[in-house]
């Protein structure tokens, strides 16, 4: 066999192997994507069904298991919005935001302040206090419900929004403080020292230098708090007794309680509306959310 023929045979063999690898890669990818698609559909199906069912009539919800409505109607939304109370659903949304906005802002400010203290300053008992903070992470919420209720009752805060957001404005949510402490530990101190040499005091350093660096983590904190507050049912149930102060989560339950025959399409329609703000905010801030919860996101 001449050298040229040998070379050409080797080349063909290489081509064949390359083609084989490419084909195997394609098949692998195809299987992977199909699998992901199926699992994704299984996980998203309840949500898709919820949206579809909110456009069905009450009778169709139970007769048609599919998610696509045969006779689409928005009556669920229209009637659901009116509610069986003197207030529209808009009123309950407004109540939710009256809790949500101060709670989210308060959490961001207080958690950042406390985390900055733990991450950057030495003070007597720091280790003890930090371990106490971490310990409260492990404590089930239900354990503190009764003492908290008694405290807020004595303060005269029952049937107001205060018990629902004031604790968070004093960094009561240990998870957020812990998350920010971990994030801060990943940020070099040089910039803060440079700011101090530039004449900034502690609060100015926090505001002008640390907060912008903490932005991804703070966005995550705000998002978490937003979603958890939107979904919080137990807190409002315990502390609020007047219907005019109910947030969305209680209002949804209200529509189940007050009618004998449930109008499921109305409940589902309002459920869709109730989860919409959290979904919209999540998708808008998705990039920062992921950056924030994975610590050490600052480039040097």
């Amino acid at each position, binding site marked *: 066999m001449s050298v040229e023929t040998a070379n050409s045979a080797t080349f063909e063999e290489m081509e064949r192997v390359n083609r084989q690898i490419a084909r195997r890669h394609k098949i692998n990818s195809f299987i992977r994507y199909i699998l992901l698609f199926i699992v994704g559909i299984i996980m998203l199906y309840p949500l898709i069904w919820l949206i579809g069912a909110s456009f069905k009539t009450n009778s169709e919800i139970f007769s048609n298991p599919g998610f696509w409505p045969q006779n689409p109607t928005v009556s669920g939304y229209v009637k659901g919005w009116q509610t069986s109370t003197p207030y529209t659903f808009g009123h309950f949304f407004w109540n939710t935001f009256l809790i949500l906005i101060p709670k989210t802002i308060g959490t961001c400010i207080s958690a950042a302040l406390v985390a900055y203290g733990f991450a950057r300053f030495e003070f007597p008992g720091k280790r003890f206090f930090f371990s106490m903070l971490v310990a409260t992470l492990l404590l089930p919420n239900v354990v503190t419900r009764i003492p908290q209720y008694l405290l807020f009752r004595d303060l005269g805060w029952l049937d107001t929004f205060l018990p629902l957001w004031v604790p968070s404005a004093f960094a009561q949510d240990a998870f957020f403080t812990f998350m920010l402490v971990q994030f801060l530990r990943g940020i*070099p101190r*040089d*910039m803060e*020292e*440079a*700011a*101090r*040499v*530039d*004449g*900034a*005091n502690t609060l*100015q350093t926090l505001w*002008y*230098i640390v907060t*912008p*660096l903490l932005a991804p983590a703070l966005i995550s904190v705000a998002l978490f708090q937003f979603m958890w507050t939107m979904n919080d049912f137990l807190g409002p149930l315990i502390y609020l007794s007047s219907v005019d102060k109910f947030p969305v989560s209680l209002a949804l339950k209200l529509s189940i309680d007050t009618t004998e025959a449930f109008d499921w399409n109305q409940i589902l329609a309002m459920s869709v509306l109730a989860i919409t703000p959290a979904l919209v905010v999540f998708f808008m801030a998705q990039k920062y959310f992921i950056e924030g919860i994975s610590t050490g996101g*600052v*480039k*040097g």
Partner: protein
Amino acid sequence: MAHLQLKKLVKKYPNGFEAVHGIDLDVKDGEFMVLVGPSGCAKSTTLRMIAGLESVTAGEIRIGERVVNTLVPGRRGIAMVFQNYALYPHMKVRKNLSFGLRLAGRPKDEIEAATKEVAEILEIEALLDRLPKELSGGQAQRVALGRALIKKPEVFLFDEPLSNLDAKLRASMRVRITDLHRRLKEEGRPATVIYVTHDQTEAMTMGDRICVMKEGHIMQVADPVTLYDKPENAFVAGFIGTPEMNLMNAQLSIAGSHTLKIGNQTISLADELASRIKASADDSEVILGIRPQHFHLAPEGTADTLSGEVTALEFMGHEVYLHVNVEGNSLIAVIPGEEYDPTNVRGSKVCLKVNESRAHVFDRESGKNISFT
């Protein structure tokens, strides 16, 4: 500008570790003082104490006529350039430069004029609207320098500012900083500078005076020439100079003629060196220090030479580094390229003649130089 004084300065950490042991240092108005030493010698700790970023355990820091021990960094009249630039990543260069002035509440037009002036001096006008992540290492370093310069401080503090740059850029920044210091002096606003580095080339080329530190103590403060020619102790002698000074254990005899015995080899000392040595006892244990440049190759059999075997050769172009084993001591001799004999290869025997007028003798116990006063 102002002079800076450290008096019996001590730094002790809560765990009991004492990093700085009561050092005294006087930096004159407009002087470029370099703190140099190996890692862990507390040069950065000292600088951070001057800046106010570390608390002072005992002693006094004076800037001008003020004791600044308890003042916050912003009120000390200092500006600092950090090792990794420490630019504020979310602010553009313009805001980075003017941050200190804005905090001080200076008028807008004054801030703009100062920013423009500094940008011109450092040739960073084109970078003013960029974010730090869009700058190269050298550009970021110039911005960091500008941030210090814009404040017109009494004392400039530099904490290893060039160590993150490549060798070429480091050399050009070295020149730029010394030029800037000279220029400020010529313009009638001399800058007092404290510059920390572990690189002795930086120290020797930039400093008016150099403070060599070791384990929280000052070993010597002197101008570069004195430091090189008359090191006060074996540590300074070994630290300053490239390649470093050859230090070997020897026995000094002063009975009759002065001789130094290194292993089995003895060299008689010329009158010049003998007269310089301040030794009281005969047969005292000493360290002989000879810079690699102060050896000459001598023909075999020449009296008062050190003979040994070449263990390695490094051709540097204009000179050759000969690594020679003399009585178990690994010495380096730098031979000018034109004097190098190509027959001296690895394994060959050579005789090294010592330039005695440049030789040093140190007391082995205290490390002090007993051949210079």
